[in-house]
């Protein structure tokens, strides 16, 4: 009997806490996250990039990324050729939140990779922003964005999942999974005198499959200063 009471009590406390949290302005949460990200003026990161799109066969390549406040980002492959979904990877949390203004709406809680998160829907103000809607899954205790689902005007919807390690204090991830719906992309039709038509298996395989780009960061150099012309 008392056991049941205890459970009810716990339940009520949970609801209260949850409501209390709800009551907390999600705008404030986003602001805090942004403030954390704002600690970084610029960074240079090295890592590896893997492209996993059914109809793209590419080797794992070493990449270098450059970021400078407010929203300048560049991904550079150390030699070689990189194929990225348009407007995709260059999009990152920093420049999303750097957008001039947004409306944050609480969308409840969720769990991503076994981490409890608060879901926040961000609606950028103004019409000329490419982002229409972005849902952030924020780890409230660490003020880290674990996942985002972003719908853009030009480049469809894509998801980013981030995991953090030693650069968590700056809000910089160790790993980013960038996934998008490959179905939305046109198959390349090469004008290459290729006569083979034996790729049906590949066509089958890619149907409805998500394309992914995975970036594994091996190190950051933070706030060391980057020349502007690098982004040109």
């Amino acid at each position: 009997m008392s056991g049941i009471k205890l459970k009810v009590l716990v339940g009520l406390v949970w609801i209260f806490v949850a409501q209390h949290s709800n009551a907390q302005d999600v705008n404030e949460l986003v602001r805090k996250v942004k403030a954390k990200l704002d600690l970084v003026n610029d960074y240079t990161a090295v890592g590896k990039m893997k492209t996993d799109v059914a109809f793209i066969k590419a080797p794992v390549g070493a990449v270098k990324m450059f970021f400078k406040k407010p929203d300048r980002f560049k991904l550079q492959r150390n030699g070689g050729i990189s194929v990225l979904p348009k407007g995709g990877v260059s999009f990152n949390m920093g420049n999303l939140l750097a957008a001039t203004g947004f409306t944050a709406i609480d969308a409840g809680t969720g769990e991503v990779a076994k981490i409890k998160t608060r879901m926040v829907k961000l609606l950028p103000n103004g019409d000329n922003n490419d982002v229409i809607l972005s849902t952030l899954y924020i780890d409230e205790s660490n003020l880290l964005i674990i996942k985002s689902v972003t719908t853009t005007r030009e480049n469809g919807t894509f998801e980013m999942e981030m995991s953090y390690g030693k650069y968590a204090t700056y809000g910089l991830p160790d790993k980013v999974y960038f996934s998008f719906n490959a179905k939305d992309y046109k198959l390349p039709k090469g004008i290459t005198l290729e006569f083979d038509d034996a790729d049906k298996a590949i066509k089958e395989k890619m149907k409805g499959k998500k394309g992914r780009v995975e970036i594994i960061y091996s190190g950051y150099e933070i706030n060391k200063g980057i020349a502007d012309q690098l982004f040109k």
Partner: protein
Amino acid sequence: MWTHLQIELYKIFKRPRTYLAFAAITALIGVIQLGLKVDGKEYTEFVMADFATSFSVDGNILNGYFICYVILQLLLVHVPLLIALIAADMISGEANMGTLRLLLTKPQSRTAILLAKFLAAVVYTLLLLIWIAIMGLLFSMLIFGTDDLFLMKSSYVVIVKESDVFWRYAGAFCFAALAMVTVAALGFFLSFFAENSIGPIVATMSVIVVCTILSTMNIPLFNTIKPFLFTSHMNNWKEFFDFKVNDANEAIIGTIQNPQKIIQSSCILFAHIVGFVGAAIILFRKKDILS
């Protein structure tokens, strides 16, 4: 045999016609390189028009490796003509000139004479390919630099790591050599039947053109005979430029997607060579020289 091969090579390289082929290749490759050097950006934009709407491709696509791939694709359609020019003339040309009967009254076995002639045609073919490699690959590498090789297959994109490309070209050229030797063998075989040069040259090209069309057309009726056409296999040098991926769709360096396809095609081409040359020798041994 060795003496005879030397003599056959001597004859080939004493003829102006032989150098015509090398000049033609130099000119063709030069034109392609010049065109791509000047307007290469437009070319890649054109080729990737569809792809570029969804993906941004970053890097030096128009590098020497890519140029060589374009050259090989274009050239390997035309090189058979240059090979036929010599190979299809090996027997018929001598019959036409009247030297065949003099040649055959010399104390050499007909098999040895024919093999020497065929080997000379093979040497010529290989030299032509080496020249293509020098002009098409090495010169392109010098002019355009090197980078990863970005290829648009008919339904997917392959990016071959720079360090993983060169051996593939070595393999591709070896395969192309086999394919071109098959053309030489065909021309050689056909040259047995005529006493003028033009006939077998035209016949060789006609066979190749017709078979290539059959190989290319996607019509069920033709699909059943496709595997038996040597032209269906000649293009499989491209298989060298496709690799296996692991479960994470990650390229496995140094692999080939369909090595069995290359082996199978090589065997079929080799069988054609043996067939054509063997038939030519068997027929030639019995042939009455009336010219």
